[in-house]
């Protein structure tokens, strides 16, 4: 007896490319690939033709030539005889500076506002609601130029601080001056600097100080070593607790490890606080925070802080009350309940959107253009392009920088997600 039906013949017909689901996916993909390649070829061909007709070439050599323009805020030494590449680097560091400062301040503001928004206190609750809705629903650009206008239009001029009948006074024991040209805060100098730079006194009678990168490196290196040592102390305490059930008291060891080495290094380097003071028509010494930096930083932090507040609120609300009650039932104290039960779970909800807010903040820092802050868009993507006429190369580099930065941050986020994900089926 033969079987009910013959198995289908193994011959291949052309129509199977379209109707057979086994082959159709290949057909679709090959058609898509051809279309994509054709589109790119068309774009690149157009670009080549256009460049030719304009008499331009595609060359990144301009990065090595002298920039010829000044930058008013630099974290590394720079002058206008240095290269466009160096100018771009100064811009990149300025972008990163405002991004990092913004992320720190936004987190602080956001966490406080998010927790207060959950408060049962009616006034506080409503105030935070006004803050969050107000900042979320108005364009960031408007906040940046508003804060910039407040700084430049409503703050006192430096000369109002002068003389015996000064109408304005510096804050915090003469160390902070808020003027319409920016804010001056004290800076840190080292009287026994390791950098070999000559120590200079800010004014008569002041301690001569110098600063170099190596001093900061030593200072922060000490701090890092202290933190590693503290983590060892904690691990040892964990081990003893595991073995004996009694946790040794270590807080004084931890505190000593943190304070003593830092204090000793600071003492030997001769760490000195240099306050700003009025000289001529302006303040001098100290660190000058320009209006552009202040406006951008404040606006970015307040704006992103409003979004972070909502994230924090959602994260705390996401943890069911049963978790707290279960922890109490196990006999855990409130602070250990928070540290061991609530926070690890809330963090899993909070961190991913928090990091994407950091990403948004970093990208939004390109709004620096509104207040003339010299970020990477202003140096590489602005003045350099205008001076060299290399729009294509400049924009490619600029886009590449932002893209690399955000891919890096997303990679970090994915890594975190994978390590904290709930293990489900």
């Amino acid at each position, binding site marked *: 007896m033969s079987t009910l039906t013959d198995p289908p013949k193994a011959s291949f017909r052309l129509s199977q490319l379209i109707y057979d689901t086994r082959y159709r*996916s290949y057909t*679709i993909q090959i058609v898509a690939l051809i279309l994509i390649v054709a589109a790119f070829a068309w774009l690149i061909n157009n*670009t080549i033709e256009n460049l030719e007709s304009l008499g331009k070439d595609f060359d990144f050599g301009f990065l090595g030539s002298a920039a010829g323009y000044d930058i008013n805020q630099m974290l590394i030494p720079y002058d206008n005889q240095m290269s466009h590449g160096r100018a771009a680097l100064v811009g990149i560091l300025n972008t990163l500076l405002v991004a990092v400062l913004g992320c720190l301040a936004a987190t602080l503001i956001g966490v406080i506002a998010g927790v207060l928004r959950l408060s049962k206190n009616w006034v*506080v609750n409503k105030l935070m609601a006004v803050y969050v809705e107000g900042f979320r*629903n108005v364009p960031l650009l408007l906040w940046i130029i508003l804060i910039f*206008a407040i700084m430049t239009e409503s703050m006192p001029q430096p000369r109002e601080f002068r003389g015996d009948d000064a109408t304005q006074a510096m804050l915090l024991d003469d160390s902070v001056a808020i003027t319409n040209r920016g804010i001056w805060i004290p800076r840190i100098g080292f009287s026994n600097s390791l950098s070999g730079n000559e120590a200079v006194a800010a004014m008569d009678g002041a301690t001569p100080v110098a600063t170099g990168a190596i001093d900061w490196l030593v200072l922060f290196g000490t701090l890092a070593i202290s933190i590693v040592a503290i983590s060892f102390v904690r691990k040892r305490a964990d081990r003893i607790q595991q073995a004996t059930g009694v946790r040794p008291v270590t807080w004084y060891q931890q505190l000593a490890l943190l304070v003593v080495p830092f204090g000793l290094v600071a003492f030997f380097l001769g760490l000195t606080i240099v306050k700003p003071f009025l000289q001529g028509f302006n303040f001098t010494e100290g660190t000058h925070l320009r209006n552009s930096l202040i406006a951008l930083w404040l606006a970015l932090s307040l704006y992103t802080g409003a979004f972070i507040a909502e994230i924090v609120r959602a994260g705390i609300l996401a943890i069911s009350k049963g978790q707290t009650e279960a922890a109490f039932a196990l006999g855990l104290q409130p602070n250990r309940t928070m540290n061991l039960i609530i926070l690890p779970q809330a963090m899993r909800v909070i961190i991913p959107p928090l990091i994407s807010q950091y990403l948004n903040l970093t990208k939004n820092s390109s709004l620096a253009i509104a207040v003339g802050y010299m970020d990477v868009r202003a140096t590489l993507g602005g003045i350099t392009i205008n001076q060299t006429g290399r729009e*294509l190369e400049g*924009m490619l580099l600029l886009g590449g920088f932002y893209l690399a930065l955000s891919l890096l941050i997303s990679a970090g986020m994915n890594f975190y997600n994978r390590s904290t994900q709930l293990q489900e089926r």
Partner: protein
Amino acid sequence: MSDTQAQTVAYVRDTMVDAQTPPITEVGVIKWLRENLFSSPLNAILTIASLYLVYWVIAHVGPWMINGIWVADSLTECREIRNATLGADVPAACFAVITERWPQLMFGFYPSDAYWRPVVALLVFFVGIAPVLFDKLPRSLLIGTLLTPFVMYLLLWGGSIWGPFAVGLGFVAGYFTFRFLNPINSLMGTIGAIIVPILFWFFLTGPIASTLTATAPIGLPFIESKDFGGFTLSVVIGIAAIILSLPLGILLALGRQSDLPIIKYSAVVFIEVIRGVPLIVWLFTASLLLNYFLPPGTNFDLMLRVIIMVTLFSAAYIAEVIRGGLAALPKGQYEAADALGLDYWKSMQLIILPQALKISIPGIVNTFIGLFKDTTLVVFIGLLDPVGLTNAIRASTDWNGIYWELFLFIGIMFFIFCYSMGRYSLYLEKKLQREHR
């Protein structure tokens, strides 16, 4: 037992005590204050600090706003009025700038005899979008929704009525091709529905539009894109990008979830590249570089370029939101759709997307709010949106030095738009949640 019960008791109350009024601290305002504002020392401090903050703000801004002067022709005149009526040192806002420059803030340099056109276009938009937003309205109104974009284009830019008409005919041709071919073969139907309109637009739209214009010249005066400004510009860019980016975002999200590697990775690269770079850089690309990528000699409208860029930008964000919705659906839904024998598009259309979109609504609306706020960035490539107009207004001698009134006005306008979008999304979320149960 009986002994204890039989014991005589000195006194037994035989009537109920009358209900007493609760202590004064447990009722009314005082109870509310105690529970809500002063329940603990920390809370009391917070309350007092917040009230002080509110007082400080009102004390500084309140008089300035209440004393505001609404009718004047320049800042100097404002100051004169203030000095005459209130005194020289009294803070007083000069809201006259808003009343005097109202047409400019709303319409930019749009011809003043055509101000009715953007207004009517906005009304047409609301009428057209109503059946989409509120499902209580009859479904047949959706045909009107399909006509809305053409009517709005005609109203805003003007020109001959037959141009949008001929473009619309292309869609109609595509629809009938699909209706005709689909019963024969679904693949041919789909391909036909894509190719026929494209051929129609390439070869027939121009001749049809020009012949019809020649025979029956009906239409509105043409207005160039460079005359658009103020809130008209923001709203036009915002609405156009919102309408265009949703379908593109859905396609990108489906592409990213696809099993076909080439489709998937091209979608991934597109989305990540767009999202990784700030909108400002894309806008500069649109204004500086687009001419490099197009055939030599092509040059098109800056506003159109901006709309394209903003659309691509928000489509990438929407794609990510919808991908979240797609990923949140239980796998059983996909398997059930397959088990019913539905093909890919049918299962997406009937089973997956309705549920995934429902989950993604808050995220999609948030993206739209972000998009609308981002329309202010066009000021950097030389378009005169409201923020750009503040600089233009301040540049005139009449209003030199006016800041806060304009910022306040623009902020409030954006707040109204964005806040109402956010409220609508909350309403939708609640409604759909109820249907779930």
